[in-house]
């Protein structure tokens, strides 16, 4: 058998399908991860217990320290398989605690592996407060000069409050399989009707929330293959030479103006296909079929 080909087949490990613990092991430097509040020391959610639902020992999120490409980082990894990665009180407190530690310890970065539908509705206000505390803590961490890099490529994507949190991060690394938006497809369909959005149309869902769309519209900085090693390389490449900008109202105003202009420009467009056409893509229907490298090359050639 041809050895290099065999190795290539063996080495590819889907990030989408991996558990949070498997992602932590594969993305960070081998053996470098030290968990804070490991399962035997953490508390499962008291709210789920009251509702008679089995909790998870780590409440669906893993936090700790590690190194990435030899540089010290702090790490957050949400487990999308447990309650859709939803943020409850303890889950949120672990994330906020980690981000506050980053302000204190000043690691090279915080790596935030988001995989979540947003607030854990079972925990109501506690979950909502947790999300708002995470938002504040992400901004505090960045203001302290520590970049927060979101990795979005899990089965739950980053929706609801976690969609906002991801966009508050310094930059996002995404795979085509990843999804990023505010209201989830089923929420939109429930609220506004199937004429507004058909959540069963998976191709449509990916055309308006998926990694390729977010890459073309500039919402994610890096597009990578659905492979833990590619996420690792993408995060290392982003961090090399990254200088976290000091917060300034002028930057915020410029970003607000850019988003307002974008909203006007794409107003009324119903599908990613229309947006890509407006961005100058000659054959939008080819986008979903393209591989990652071709899409990156195509984006380079688009009008600024």
């Amino acid at each position: 058998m041809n050895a290099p080909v065999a190795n290539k087949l063996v080495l590819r490990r889907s990030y989408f399908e991996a558990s949070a613990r498997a992602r932590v092991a594969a993305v960070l430097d081998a053996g470098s991860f030290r968990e804070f509040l490991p399962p035997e020391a953490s508390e499962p959610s008291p709210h789920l217990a009251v509702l008679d639902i089995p909790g998870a020992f780590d409440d669906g999120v893993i936090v700790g320290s590690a190194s990435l490409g030899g540089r010290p980082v702090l790490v957050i990894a949400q487990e999308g398989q447990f309650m859709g990665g939803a943020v409850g009180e303890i889950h949120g407190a672990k994330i906020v605690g980690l981000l506050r530690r980053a302000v204190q310890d000043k690691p090279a970065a915080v790596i935030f592996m988001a995989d979540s539908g947003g607030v854990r509705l079972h925990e109501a206000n506690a979950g909502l407060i947790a999300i708002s505390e995470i938002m504040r803590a992400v901004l505090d961490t960045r203001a302290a000069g520590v970049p927060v890099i979101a990795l979005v490529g899990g089965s739950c994507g980053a929706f609801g409050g976690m969609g906002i949190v991801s966009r508050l991060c310094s930059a996002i690394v995404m795979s085509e399989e990843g999804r990023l938006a505010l209201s989830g497809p089923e929420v939109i369909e429930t609220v506004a009707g199937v004429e507004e959005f058909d959540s069963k149309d998976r191709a449509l869902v990916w055309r308006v929330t998926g990694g390729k769309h977010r890459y073309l519209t500039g919402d994610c900085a890096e597009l990578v293959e659905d492979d833990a090693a590619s996420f690792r390389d993408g995060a290392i490449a982003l961090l090399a030479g990254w200088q976290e900008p000091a917060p300034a109202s002028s930057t915020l105003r410029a970003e607000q103006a850019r988003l307002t202009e974008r909203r006007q420009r794409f107003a009324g467009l119903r599908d990613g296909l229309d947006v890509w056409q407006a961005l100058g893509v000659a054959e939008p229907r080819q986008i979903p079929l393209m591989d990652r490298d071709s899409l990156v090359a195509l984006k380079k050639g688009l009008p600024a």
Partner: protein
Amino acid sequence: MEKLEFRFPAQPATPAAGAALCGVVGSGNLEILIRPGDEADTCVVSVKTSARGFGRIWEAVIAEFAARHAAGGTRIAINDMGATPAVVSLRLGQALGEYTGGVQ
């Protein structure tokens, strides 16, 4: 949710780690946490499961596990979201493998 407690005699385990976790609390899956127990020749298991009324099947699966493996001196906690008996057996073996540093 149903809470179940079991105690079975078992040959003493030789731990390689302070604790071991295996699996995820997702649909049709479960997580198992193994920690050191108080009695070297007893395996103490506590289960929280979303599926009610399967106590006798849990008992049979865990008894078989305790009889086949050196799992004494352990305290095993399980959070279950409707895993089948085959998955439970698989995960128990996996978790004990990690706890004793053997095959995973």
